[in-house]
């Protein structure tokens, strides 16, 4: 039996046999969206579990181990608890925006997942401006945070939201520019193309020094993008209590929480795709088995996710002005110079290719 990995096309072909073409393509989109939603809701929950386990190991603890074997059902139980919880809110909150905010955050992070090539042709939406789409989508999430903080009529939440606005606008630049540096190498924004180019060597090797610098900048800016420690100014529990989601409870809080972890996954997935060859195996050892690409893709992504967790459980938090100093005085100038260096390297053909 031949399992084709191009899921959208497979489903569409199957549906066309039963109904008109227009209806079929819409239905196919809905089905794929539901599949993604289901997979990543669960994946998000397991990322939460992973975070808690990793944190526990860093902190000489055991971590969740009561629900299910080895605590594997812990976050499921948490999700159940959150679903069953009462949705509270402040009286003077702007009800419409207050309720809208979590959906902004969760939808924008789920939308970004559509473009990733998990393995050869296993991609819901192979858009030719993939990187551009990702950058655009990831900055929508901050609107949700701003709305949530502003509309909940709580000063702690408001400070958190304003910090988030400042932070995301600043670090958006660095994420964009560091990815742009790599696009100079590939010459394409399409993610499947970018992976294709890396069959001659992962981009971090192809671009050597400027690529490594770009990766470091990307990791710093990406961590800041997801509002995780050491850049968790938005939540900063020792300063703002819980920051922008102070007034959220139950499932609305869960959306924020889940979105944070899916965003972390997205940032790591972009890094995998752009710097570490996506679903390509090292030295092409499993080239004949395309479905193993999923394993390689997830493996690389999880390593980068782990790196971000390592940051979080080691470093103290920056202060808001230092956060901006880091971006505008260090990351941005270095990044601009780096682009020029990369351009020269590509122009002189100094890239390393196998």
């Amino acid at each position: 039996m031949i399992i084709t990995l191009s899921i959208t096309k497979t489903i569409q072909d199957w549906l066309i046999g039963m109904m008109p073409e227009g209806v079929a393509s819409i239905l196919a989109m809905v089905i794929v969206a539901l599949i993604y939603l289901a997979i990543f809701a669960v994946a998000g929950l397991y990322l939460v579990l992973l975070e808690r386990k990793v944190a526990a190991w860093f902190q000489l603890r055991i971590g969740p181990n009561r629900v299910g074997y080895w605590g594997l059902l812990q976050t499921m139980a948490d999700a159940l608890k959150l679903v069953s919880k009462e949705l509270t809110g402040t009286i003077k909150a702007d009800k419409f925006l207050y309720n809208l905010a979590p959906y902004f955050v969760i939808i924008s992070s789920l939308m970004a997942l559509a473009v990733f090539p998990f393995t050869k042709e296993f991609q819901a939406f192979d858009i030719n401006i993939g990187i551009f789409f990702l950058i655009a989508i990831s900055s929508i999430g901050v609107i949700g945070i701003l709305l949530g903080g502003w509309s909940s009529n709580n000063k702690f939440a408001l400070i958190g939201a304003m910090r988030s606005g400042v932070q995301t606008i600043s670090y958006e630049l660095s994420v964009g520019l560091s990815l742009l540096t790599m696009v100079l190498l590939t010459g394409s924004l399409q993610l499947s193309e970018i992976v294709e180019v890396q069959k001659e060597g992962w981009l971090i090797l192809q671009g050597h020094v400027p690529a490594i610098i770009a990766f470091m900048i990307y990791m710093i800016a990406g961590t800041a993008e997801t509002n995780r420690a050491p850049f968790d100014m938005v939540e900063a529990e020792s300063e703002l209590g819980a920051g922008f989601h102070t007034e959220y409870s139950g499932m609305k809080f869960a959306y924020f929480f889940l979105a944070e972890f899916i965003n972390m996954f997205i940032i790591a997935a972009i890094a995998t795709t752009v710097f570490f060859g996506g679903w390509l195996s090292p030295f092409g050892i499993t080239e004949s088995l395309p479905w193993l690409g999923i394993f390689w893709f997830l493996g690389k992504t999880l390593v980068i996710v782990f790196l971000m967790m390592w940051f979080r459980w080691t470093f103290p938090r920056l202060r808001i002005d230092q956060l901006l100093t880091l971006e505008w005085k260090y990351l941005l100038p270095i990044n601009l110079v780096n682009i020029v260096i990369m351009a020269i390297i590509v122009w002189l053909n100094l890239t390393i290719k196998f």
Partner: protein
Amino acid sequence: MDTTIVKSNFKSEEYFINMGPQHPATHGVLRLLLTIDGEIIKKVEPDLGYIHRSIEKMCERDSYQQIVHLTDRMDYLSSHINNEAVCLTVENALQLEMPDRVKVIRTILSELTRIASHCLWWGVMGMDVGALTTYFYGFRDREMINDIFEETCGARLTMNYNIPGGLMFDVHPNFVKRTKDFIAHFKTKLPEYDTLLTGNVIFQKRTKGVGILTKEDAISFGASGPVGRASGYSCDVRKHHPYSAYDRVTFNEAIKTEGDTFARYQVRIQEMWESISIIEQLIDNIPDGDVQVATNAVIKLPKGEYYQKVETARGELGVYIISTGTKNPYRVKFRSPGFSNLSLLNHIAVGGKIGDLVASMATLDLVIPDIDR
């Protein structure tokens, strides 16, 4: 364009924030009324009394033996030193000379208390600036000290091991071994504190030049303990008014002159090293002898006033007892270090950001029951 017009066009508005009584950074039920302009702090006004138990009033109806256990509940992280302060006051009033064994054991336990308190402070300090993992490393080492206390005194936090006239009972046979084990363990772990947090560039940026307290202000505000010493003010009671066995050990008073949050941090780290050295000097030669001097079942202090200072982990604790010759004190006043240290919070936090306030407050090392006696 005239710059003053530009300034007047841009109006910023101050607003209030209630930090506490339930807030992660206030470490208890302290409420701070913050006046903030954007992120800049304009005024900090503490609101106290959420856990005031009126210990001073309770002391007026209790006998001298019974006062001691109340002091456990003041600064619960240096409860042994608090107990010692009351006992020393009563013993001085009765002119009782303690056996050497009592003095040495009290000193060792005091220093262990200090290390335990600073371990907790270090963990919480890291947590306040955002490094959550430090909390567990600090607690790991503190647990070992708590075990020592539990084995000898029977309690981990509120031990009530001192009584006027000595110690309640002798130390546990395992005490010396356990303490030595701990010292050996802690000597390997304390450098880790430095590599993990002290050297960290983010941590240094967060703390250096933040919350500066000059020496003059430190004295005027009655700052004591590490807070005063970080401003270059030599205020170690163990040096200036030695009690128990502090006159027979050599140690350096940790003094920094910068007066900022980082200096306060370094002073506490340095103090842990000094405490290790004090314990090492004493642990091998605890003199033999009694651990109690016989006192009357009902202690009556001669008419008069008695004052005793000790150095707790937070600073100078003063016990002021006015006696009229009866079995209860007429008036007991505890001069708690946290209370004076809190009064300077407004001074050092104004002009900083919210994050700076949290960092400075962490290095003041406030224990709220100590303030709300």
